[in-house]
């Protein structure tokens, strides 16, 4: 690990225009991503993990979404870049893979063309060179008979193979950062295990960092170095994977652990979390988890807690008044 992070996100907030008003879907998202590291954003649907990912690449339509805060990639601020400027970053510096391999590929273009296109939009090279390189990448992600399958269309591949093609496409320009938006959620477990192994391998071999989005703590355990647990548009806990799994601090994280049925041990009872995730239009004041929290205190409803380490020496940060008294407003300079 070098000193400067590859990607530094600070105070990031994505707002959507809903019924004429701007509503923040995420608030004060902050994390650092270092070289060769994988950070997992984990949370249930509607927590803003996917929106954060798309915001980093500037993929949300400007008409309905706007961004505040800062995203610094290798010393360069990405927030506020024009679409044309972002196009030189997308795919080349930061690439992305998606949840649905069935719909993420263009059905009327051969898979080879789609990979080669990723190469050719970022680099001057001949068609033949791009093709050779595309085949090499297909081979690299273990697509059998890559050269023969170059001219096949997406529908001729299985879900797992399509996800490998999406990965090959993302790897085509050897990006420094890969954003993976639930890339294994739509796949069967045996295929999921293969794809996770593939991604670990690629990160190690290409010196690549990864932001991995998932709702499954099991997948987090398999892939992440650091974990950011998200709830209702905020990061509520941020820690190394070992620490988080050994000693989760936020009541939401703990509740999550107690709600998953585990395959490796028999549980008598699951602890369901009462209530449901609030919609974006009805986020509570103060701590957003407070209405569902078993440890709720009076002050939780007042001010939103700030994500901070309980022990200043530890990198294990949590946004909960049980662990410290720092509130969000005080964080603002």
């Amino acid at each position, binding site marked *: 690990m070098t000193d400067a992070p590859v990607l530094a996100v600070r105070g990031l907030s994505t707002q959507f225009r809903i019924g004429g008003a701007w509503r923040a879907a995420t608030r004060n998202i902050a994390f650092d991503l270092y070289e060769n590291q994988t950070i997992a954003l984990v949370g249930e649907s509607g927590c803003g993990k996917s929106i954060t990912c798309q915001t980093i*690449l500037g*993929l949300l339509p400007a008409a309905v979404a706007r961004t505040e805060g800062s995203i610094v990639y290798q010393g360069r601020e990405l927030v506020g870049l024009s*679409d*044309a400027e972002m*196009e*030189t*970053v*997308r*795919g*080349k510096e930061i*690439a*992305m893979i*998606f949840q*649905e391999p069935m*719909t*993420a*590929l*263009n*059905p*009327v*273009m*051969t898979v080879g063309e789609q990979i080669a*296109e*990723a190469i050719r*939009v*970022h680099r001057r090279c001949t068609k033949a060179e791009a093709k050779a390189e595309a085949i090499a990448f297909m081979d690299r992600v273990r697509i059998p008979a890559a050269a023969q399958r170059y001219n096949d*269309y997406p*529908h001729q591949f299985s879900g797992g193979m399509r996800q490998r093609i*999406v990965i090959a*496409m*993302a790897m*085509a320009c050897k990006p420094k950062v890969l954003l993976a938006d639930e890339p294994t959620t739509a796949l069967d477990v045996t295929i999921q295990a293969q794809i996770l192994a593939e991604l670990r391998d690629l990160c190690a071999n290409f010196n690549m960092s990864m932001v991995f989005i998932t709702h499954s703590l099991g997948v987090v355990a398999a892939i992440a170095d650091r974990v950011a647990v998200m709830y209702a548009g905020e990061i509520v806990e941020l820690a190394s994977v070992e620490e988080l799994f050994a000693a989760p601090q936020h009541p939401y994280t703990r509740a999550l652990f107690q709600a998953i049925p585990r395959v490796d041990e028999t549980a008598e009872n699951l602890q369901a979390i009462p209530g449901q995730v609030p919609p974006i239009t009805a986020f509570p004041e103060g701590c957003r988890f407070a209405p569902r929290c078993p440890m709720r205190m009076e002050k939780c409803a007042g001010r939103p807690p700030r994500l901070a380490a309980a022990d200043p020496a530890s990198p294990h940060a949590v946004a909960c008044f049980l662990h410290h008294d720092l509130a969000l407003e005080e964080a603002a300079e």
Partner: protein
Amino acid sequence: MARYALLKLLYAVPTLFAVLLLVFVLTRVIPGDPAQLILGDQATPEAIAALRTQLGLDKSIPLQFLDFLVGVLHGDFGSSIVTGQSVVSLAAAVLPSTLELTVASLVVGVVFGVPLGAWSAMRRNRLPDIAVRIGSLIGLSLPAFVFGILLLVVFAVQLGWFPVIAPSGDVSVFEDLRALVLPAVTLGILMAAYITRVTRSSMLQVLGEDFIRTARAKGVPWWRVVRRHALRNAIIPVVTVVGLYLGVLIGNSVLTEMVFNRPGLGKLIVGALAQRDYPVLQGLMVLYTLLIILANLITDLAYGVFNPRVRFA
């Protein structure tokens, strides 16, 4: 693909048979005796009986149908009771003219419709989109003969740019094309109105698909995303719709040929109607069916060309 085409034609056989049956039944339910109709009110009973025998009307209905089928299989649709010419030669004489008109309109329709529809989708809810949508709505609401009359009055009568009546006989290619312009534009613009709408909604749908986001995420410039990714997908449903529209086009060609007084199947059919020339009507109906079946086949094959997910055995 050849195998598929053959199979498809094979599937068309029952359709064709049903059409023949329908045509046959329709001609038999006409009030009155066809022989009487042909010979008129003053005919003697003997003459009518003779004609009945000649036309085979004295046989039983199934036998008559069999005769009719056998004739059709031999390419014999009988002869016009007005001119005595064979129906096949009558139709063959004007078919090229109708085909010429149909193809020209198709070209006009696609050349205007697809780009306008795509442009409209890209500028969604802005001025160009609104203008295109209003225009296409009007185009969709105009009966072909009304639009044809309008063009005729303005461009042929008032401005005199084009002939009011199509020249017949041997004319230069230039004259022939000049006479084609107004009818083809009439049909083509109406078709474009339709294609514009389909292209627009197809394009809007495609622009929301995941693979568009994938393409953007790998840094493909927006204009290239539209051209290489969106348009190529958006065109697929348009092909189907163009195929369906061919039927409307053929129907509309009847009206256009009337308005522009252009020789063609439409003129032939209207003339036959006026003179109650049943053999001609029968024959033309079968011919129209054949044309539509053929058009559908071409559409299916074209669909396969645009959509790699469709593969023919």
